């Protein structure tokens, strides 16, 4: 029977005063030994800082969006759609709403007049009212209107560099020669336009019309910004949306307002916040292991003190309370430091990468963000300390005279076990509830379970192996293996603390390698070399002749290309459909649409049947099978798209499996020809050149296409892949930096574990010195131990990381898994540097320690 079960009813002073005294006693003790808990505090502060910092940064950017929304959007509200300029009645309606500005954006080629160079550019045609809000900043004292007058253009400086031109020179845009009048230094509404891939060329709408690039069929996005009088609140914005629905029901305009000027950027920001918060939580949980280690060792050091308290009449509950107060105080310090650091992250990021962010990030204090970060910190601190505290409550007075050789190893009382479980579940629930993607949060918790179960198990396996391999001849190595194999040794702590971060880094590196290799070396032999965009239908024949005249083996595959937006599935408006995250993009914004007489190359019909040649019946559409599955669509269902300001409803005739990886032309939705044939549209084409074609021949062909077909945009697949790789590289670097936080948490835990083990290590070193061991022999022993530990941890991290990367590439990204030596070396290097550097820092102290205090018998 437990002692406190008897003692509790007899406590005459178990009222508030007694517990008040315990709280005072706990805090007093803590104040005297605070320096021993620095690592514990750092473990909590780090994770809380990451979560609070990410949240604050996201809050700051969001606040910036809201504050500067009108400038970022170019007006209070905008309407945008592809292909079709606003009709006169639509324009009249817009003019009624308030001041209006019209812009058109498209991708095209800018060429030197001598045809020697050409660059993919983002053209933006603007009217005289542009910009309604904010200002276009030009280099020098150039004037916007003067620069745009006639056939004038304002360009980003990088374009001049690439084309080898200067201000005052002229360049070819479509069929016009335009003069470069000024350099663009800042464009207020840049983020409201689509993701840009090339330098900006700003012209007047008249210049754009003269270039012939904005003719019907071209991939032009028309955008109308309006200034609503008088300055409306959010209700007025909602009312505006309602009016668009009522008055322009089939216009196909996408509506954006100043409260969220770039929904796609906000969405990316939200997803990034969730992902990075999970990383912060991972760091916090790894730090939690440090908390558990620190508390267990604290309780262990205090066994005699606790036993003395018990012998003086303290109940188990009082002992528990006393230590709980200390944990709560330590957690509060860690959380306070973490929140403070977190608040400093937005200004620090702003200072570091001010040019990259669309808005300024300032210090923002959001109660929700701070509460979430503090809540995570507190829950993790409790989750990992209740167990050792529960065991402290079980220490009995008998521990005072019991031999320490056989310390009792009891489970905490059931309320402590239940509370630990409940806190774990709350933490899991909170993470799942605050993540948009439940699946990601669940994967995360699966990962945590792996970390807390698999890594300790692997640590034990390493220790077991060290105990069971034949004893090496050299005593230093034998001692090192002995330390690794010792039951209370460092092995489990090191494998767990560093293994987690290293596995994450290895997985990221391997996923990165797999994607890059897939793109660079595994492109199917029949993948195209060029994409040609915006080919006017009537120019196809001459283009084909131009290409095949150069090489009879060159292949050109073309497909009609329009842009349109999904407005309804089975009659349900697209904006009311809750789709899983991986399918949401289909429902947002404009999609490429096409039509075909036969099944497109690279596709396979997996359900339903393709339409017969010359089909003239009700509109039919072929839908990509996987997305159809996510959107719960099947053969026979109806989808409505808005094309060129007209709603078209078609029945799904079949589902197609698409092999996107061969980079052929493919679309989510391919209609029967009778639906779209009559609409004005251009063609998209792929060109595959024979391998004998030289780079010089390729460049010449590309220039000739530019000369003969000025409206056609030429994109080299290799360049596009390289550009993608650059973006991918940046994303992977960001993920790696975020992942390093977990490594930092691991390093803290490692430092804590080493500090805990330090006394034991000094004692062993002193014994060895007494037996005739030299400092070099002791150093060799430590080095051997740390190297073996680092190698084992790196090896395990590689295995776990590779398994994770394999699962991610195979099931999530669907690319072939590639192994990389770089990942192995990176893991090894980080492990060796961290373990050996941290470890040997302690060894210095071990070698310098005076032997006598450790050799004297306690109490002698």
């Amino acid at each position, binding site marked *: 029977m437990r002692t406190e079960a008897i003692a509790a009813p007899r406590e005459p002073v178990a009222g508030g005063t007694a517990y008040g005294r315990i709280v005072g006693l706990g805090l007093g003790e803590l104040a005297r030994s605070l320096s021993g808990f620095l690592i514990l505090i750092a473990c909590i502060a780090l994770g809380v800082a990451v979560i609070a910092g990410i949240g604050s940064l996201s809050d700051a950017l969001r606040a910036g969006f809201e504050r500067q929304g009108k400038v970022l959007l170019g007006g209070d509200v905008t309407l945008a759609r592809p292909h079709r300029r606003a009709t006169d009645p639509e324009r009249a309606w817009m003019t009624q709403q308030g001041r209006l500005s019209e812009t058109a954006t498209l991708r095209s080629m800018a060429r030197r007049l001598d045809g020697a160079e050409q660059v993919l550019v983002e053209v933006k045609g603007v009217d005289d009212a542009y910009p309604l809000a904010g200002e276009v900043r030009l280099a020098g004292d150039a004037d916007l209107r003067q620069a745009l007058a006639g056939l004038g253009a304002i360009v980003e400086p990088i374009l001049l560099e690439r084309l080898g031109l200067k201000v005052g020179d002229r360049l070819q845009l479509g069929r016009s020669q335009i003069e470069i009048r000024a350099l663009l230094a800042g464009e207020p509404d840049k983020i409201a336009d689509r993701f840009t891939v090339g330098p900006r060329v700003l012209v007047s709408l008249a210049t754009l019309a003269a270039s012939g690039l904005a003719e019907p069929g071209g991939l032009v996005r028309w955008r109308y910004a309006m200034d609503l009088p008088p300055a409306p609140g959010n209700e007025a914005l909602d009312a505006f949306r309602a009016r668009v629905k009522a008055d322009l029901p089939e216009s196909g305009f996408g509506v954006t307002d100043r409260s969220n000027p770039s929904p796609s950027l906000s969405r990316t920001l939200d997803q990034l916040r969730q992902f990075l918060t999970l990383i912060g939580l991972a760091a916090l949980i790894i730090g939690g292991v440090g908390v558990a280690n620190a508390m267990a060792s604290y309780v262990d050091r205090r066994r005699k003190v606790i036993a003395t308290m018990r012998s003086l009449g303290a109940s188990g509950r009082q002992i528990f309370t006393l230590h709980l107060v200390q944990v709560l105080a330590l957690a509060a310090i860690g959380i306070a430091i973490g929140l403070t650091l977190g608040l400093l992250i937005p200004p620090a990021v702003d200072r570091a990468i001010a040019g990259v962010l669309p808005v300024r990030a300032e210090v923002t204090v959001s109660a929700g963000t701070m509460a979430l970060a503090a809540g995570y910190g507190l829950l993790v601190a409790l989750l990992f300390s209740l167990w050792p505290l529960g065991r402290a409550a079980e220490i009995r007075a008998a521990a005072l005279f019991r031999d320490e050789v056989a310390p009792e190893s009891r489970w905490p009382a059931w309320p402590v076990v239940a509370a630990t479980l409940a806190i774990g579940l709350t933490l899991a629930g909170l993470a799942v509830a605050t993540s948009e993607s439940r699946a990601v949060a669940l994967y995360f918790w699966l990962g945590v379970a792996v970390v807390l179960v698999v890594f300790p198990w692997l640590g034990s396996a390493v220790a077991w192996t060290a105990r069971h391999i034949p004893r090496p001849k*050299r*005593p230093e190595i034998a001692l090192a293996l002995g330390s690794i194999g010792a039951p209370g040794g460092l092995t489990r702590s090191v494998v767990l603390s560093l293994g987690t971060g290293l596995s994450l880094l290895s997985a990221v590196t391997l996923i990165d390698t797999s994607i890059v290799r897939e793109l660079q070396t595994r492109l199917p032999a029949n993948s195209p070399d060029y994409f040609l965009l915006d080919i006017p239908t009537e120019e196809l024949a001459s283009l084909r002749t131009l290409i095949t005249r150069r090489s009879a083996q060159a292949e050109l595959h073309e497909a009609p290309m329009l842009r349109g937006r999904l407005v309804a599935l089975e009659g349900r408006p697209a904006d009311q459909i809750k789709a899983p995250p991986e399918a949401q993009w289909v429902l947002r914004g404009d999609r490429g649409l096409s039509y075909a007489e036969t099944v497109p190359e690279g596709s396979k019909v997996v359900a339903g049947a393709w339409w017969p040649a010359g089909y003239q019946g009700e509109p039919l559409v072929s839908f990509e099978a996987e997305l159809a599955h996510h959107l719960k669509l099947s053969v026979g269902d109806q989808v409505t798209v808005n094309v060129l300001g007209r709603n078209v409803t078609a029945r799904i005739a079949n589902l197609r499996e698409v092999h996107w990886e061969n980079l052929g032309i493919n679309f989510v939705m391919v209609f029967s020809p009778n639906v779209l044939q009559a609409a004005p549209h251009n063609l998209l084409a792929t060109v595959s050149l024979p391998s004998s074609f030289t780079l010089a021949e390729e460049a010449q062909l590309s220039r000739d296409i530019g000369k003969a077909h000025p409206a056609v945009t030429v994109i080299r697949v290799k360049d596009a892949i390289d550009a993608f790789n650059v973006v991918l590289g940046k994303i992977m670097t960001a993920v790696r930096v975020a992942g390093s936080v977990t490594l930092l948490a691991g390093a803290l835990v490692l430092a804590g574990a080493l500090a805990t083990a330090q006394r034991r290590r000094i004692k062993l070193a002193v014994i060895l010195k007494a037996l*005739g061991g030299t400092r070099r022999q002791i150093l060799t022993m430590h080095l051997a131990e740390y190297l073996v530990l680092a190698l084992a941890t790196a090896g395990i991290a590689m295995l776990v990381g590779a398994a994770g990367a394999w699962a991610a590439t195979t099931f999530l990204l669907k690319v072939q898994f590639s192994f990389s030596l770089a990942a192995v070396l990176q893991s090894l290097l980080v492990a060796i540097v961290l373990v050996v550097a941290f470890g040997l820092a302690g060894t210095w102290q071990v070698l310098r320690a005076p032997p006598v205090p450790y050799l004297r*018998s306690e109490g*002698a």
Partner: protein
Amino acid sequence: MAENVIELEGVGLTLRSRAGDIEILKGVDLRVAQGETVAIVGPSGSGKTSLLMVMAGLERATSGSARVAGHELGGLDEDALARVRSAAIGIVFQSFHLVPTMTAHENVALPLEFRGIAGARERARGALDEVGLGGRLEHYPAQLSGGEQQRVALARALVSQPRLLLADEPTGNLDGATGRQVIDLILGLGRRHGATLVLVTHDEALAARCSRVLRMTDGCIVADTGSRTAGVGTAAPVGDRTGATA
């Protein structure tokens, strides 16, 4: 006259602490000849263990000179001191101080292995046979009783055939009967190996079994009785004082 294994002249040991300097040993003079068995007795805090640690080269005298097994310890660096210990000094501690991750056999072989001596394992087995633990070679310290652990420590101390065996309260953690067995072994094996024995003890009966008893108080040797050999620098005056205080 037998050669002196230990020659201490004016050995002082002062430790610095926040409360000020503490003088642990105050100018100790002592000579111990080869083959002597010497017990150091005295109250707690009198400097017994510190004196033993100076002899072992584990504590450096802050004044005076300490010559042990022919080596002037003051001039040696830490590694040289370690080499002197591994070649000439065996030490037995009250708390045994066995390496917990090593078997009895490995613990005993360790000093020889540090010196790179061939046949270390065989000699270690022989040493364990001598202390009656030939059957417990592969046991870890935690699997042995206190008495057994101390016998392993004794085997480890003697396996290098040291000229000097130092023992700090070797029976302090053992019950009476086990303690007596261990002392029998220490004295018997020490004699058999021709080692000089210096042991620190509180146990007067144990001290009486030694050929010479040094009594310490407050960092000084205040009595030196039963010395069989000449050459104990302070024998006469100390003897006088012993007479006065006994």
